[in-house]
């Protein structure tokens, strides 16, 4: 018994054998040993012991997924406290097939168990299960059929993937039959990139399945804002991805893949200078930007325009980050935050300088 993989299995009221729709509101309940699909798990894998089963109603979880997941984590902790032999190596949930509420329940449970207990989890669902929209990135979910007809295959796959998880092995969607998580991970291929590229080209020329290693992303497009009605009255702000920061880089913004943006005052400054500012960007030759930082953050000409009445006024705060090897995801979040802050202080237009 000691050498077996210990599993706690989470099921809904139906597969847990407690009833149908009318029992959907059931709070989490602990049962010793395997129930329903859990028996199949043990049948398939002699080296797995389902030490306990938690059954929870679909509606209970759908109505308060976070609280429900917390209760289940607490329930597992309580069982372990009572009997250390119940500490699971793996938590399984489902299969949920295409059932939306059950899928959400499995997703919430798996995420909470992984994050709060650090125990690996595996579930199974149909690729169209709506729970994937919410939990895709954190879930190891094997592909399952739409309904209970796919039970045997789904449990089979859960067992296989679960054993790999317990062994600490990497799971790869294309090889393990899991639902892709939208996460890119490096690995060493058998052949060099050059060889793979030639073989891929030959496949393409032969009209065979190309098997691209990176499917083109879909870019989000932003509709431009309406033109500024009267620039001579507008408040302008400066924002740059060219890495112009006060000398000394007080926020320690990284030279590549910046993890933050800075927010700096321009008050009392008529222009930037080599003594006051510098570029910390790692993607371009900063010699000329450091010589005269106005070349990237054009404070000098904007002050001129302010004096001449060409613009209403310049916002006294500028924002800067480094747009070098910075992931699109991060850049989008900085853009959203900075835009909200600018709107808050009544800015109508922005000069965004990139490098």
């Amino acid at each position, binding site marked *: 018994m000691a050498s077996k993989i210990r599993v706690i299995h989470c099921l809904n009221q139906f597969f847990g054998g407690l009833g149908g729709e009318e029992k959907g509101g059931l709070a989490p309940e602990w049962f010793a040993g395997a129930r329903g699909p859990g028996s199949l798990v043990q049948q398939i894998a002699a080296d797995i012991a389902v030490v306990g089963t938690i059954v929870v109603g679909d509606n209970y979880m759908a109505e308060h997924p976070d609280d429900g997941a917390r209760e289940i984590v607490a329930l597992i902790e309580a069982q372990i406290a009572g009997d250390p032999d119940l500490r699971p190596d793996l938590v399984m949930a489902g299969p949920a097939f295409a059932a939306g509420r059950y899928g959400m329940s499995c997703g919430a449970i798996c995420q909470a168990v992984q994050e709060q207990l650090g125990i690996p989890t595996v579930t199974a669902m149909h690729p169209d299960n709506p729970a994937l929209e919410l939990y895709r990135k954190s879930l190891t979910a094997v592909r399952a059929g739409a309904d209970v007809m796919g039970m045997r295959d789904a449990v089979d796959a859960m067992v296989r993937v679960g054993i790999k998880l317990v062994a600490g092995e990497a799971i790869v969607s294309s090889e393990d039959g899991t639902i892709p998580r*939208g996460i890119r991970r490096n690995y060493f291929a058998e052949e060099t990139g050059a060889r793979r*590229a030639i073989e891929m080209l030959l496949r393409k020329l032969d009209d065979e399945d190309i098997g691209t*290693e990176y499917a083109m992303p879909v870019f989000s497009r932003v509709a431009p804002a309406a033109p500024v009605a009267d620039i001579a009255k507008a408040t302008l702000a400066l924002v740059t991805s060219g890495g112009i920061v006060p000398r000394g880089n007080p926020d320690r913004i990284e*030279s*590549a893949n910046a993890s933050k943006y800075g927010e700096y005052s321009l008050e009392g400054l008529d222009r930037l200078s080599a003594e006051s500012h510098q570029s910390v960007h*790692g993607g371009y030759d900063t010699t000329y930007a450091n010589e005269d930082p106005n070349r990237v953050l054009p404070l000098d000409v904007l002050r001129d325009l302010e004096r001449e009445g060409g613009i209403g006024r310049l916002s006294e705060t500028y924002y800067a980050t480094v747009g070098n090897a910075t992931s699109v*995801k991060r850049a989008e979040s900085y853009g959203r935050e900075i835009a909200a802050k600018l709107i808050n202080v009544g800015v109508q237009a922005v000069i965004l300088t990139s490098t």
Partner: protein
Amino acid sequence: MTLTLHRHSVQTVALGGTAGIVGGILTVNADTLRSYLQSRDDRLTAIRISLALPGEATRIVCVKDVVAPRAKKSGKESGTGTLSVLDNVAVVTCGPIVGFQEGIIDMSGPGADYTPFSRLPLVVLDIDVGDAVSPHEHEAAVRSAGLDAAEFIARGCIDTKPDVIETVAWEPLHGGPDLPRIAYVYMVLSQGLLHDNYVFGRNAKEGLPILVDPRAAFDNAIVSGNCVSACDKNTTYHHQNNPVIAELLRGHGSRWDFAGVVISNAATRLADKQRAAEAAVELVANMKADGALVSKEGFGNPDTDLMMLLRGLEQAGIRASAITDEFAGIEGDSQSLADATPEADAIISVGNANERIQLPAMTTVFGPLPDVTRLAGGYPHSLREDGTMEVELQAIMGSTNQLGFSRLSCREV
């Protein structure tokens, strides 16, 4: 036209008195080499010459370039004549940071798996220049020193009998067996301001795209002078050992007809990008190629050059595949490229350069270790007091090489 390689297989390298190669042992006389380099360039104020051998607990930082020692024995034109080649060894230049985008080579430990240079005995030149030397002059001085050193070391072995004499044959088939005709579009970065490369001695900003004999690459036709991120700058060594050309030559005449190489560039201005892509596509179309393979250098801005080339090739009826790395974020959950086109449906990924790696402390370090915190791929907190480091793969030399030199790849999990 033929290119004959006189290949010397280097088993190990030693620093010592009499320079040359005897029984696979390459001896480098550090004093002679240093004097030679300094006699050619008075900007070089100090050159510390050391060896870094595979498996040693050695870290080389702020690596600028890696160069394979080769010297011309006969013939003038690049890609013809006789070239004396030292295999399994390289010259590495390092020293205080010039741009941000120099890199790390670890000779052992987890970082060593990601750089091809950990598998070679390396002659390391840790170079200082005078205080008055500008960054651009600094780059030029160190670049020339690396090339000169590699040539000097190879020339010292030129009269020794080579282990292997190899003739590199290539003649496009122009008919004959029914094989797919494949061209190679070889994109080199040409953005200026420390993002330069040199093709036949000329800055890649000008005079490209051109059609070249594939063998020219082996004969130092392309020299790296750029400070692009360490992971995907093509070092001079990568050019000298271009794996796409080597592979295409290997299968030429049996599996495909290698039609030739178009060297194209990657400029900063949109109009220049469009012009270069159109001209490159036209050169490939003139070869009557069925397919073309495109390799890349750098990331972000050059993603656009790559997409333009792929779109143009496909629209001209030429099927295309391409090699690129990814910047998918530390967690790997961001989109990976700065540009995209539906025609780019045959992509080889050589890895996510944002992925982080923990590097152990090393007993020997060449170059200024604290500068790693300023490298692209390093962080202000990268270097810990005990000498351990956390960096992105971006900071490791050649980790995501887009000529397809290595085996690293990336996939969705």
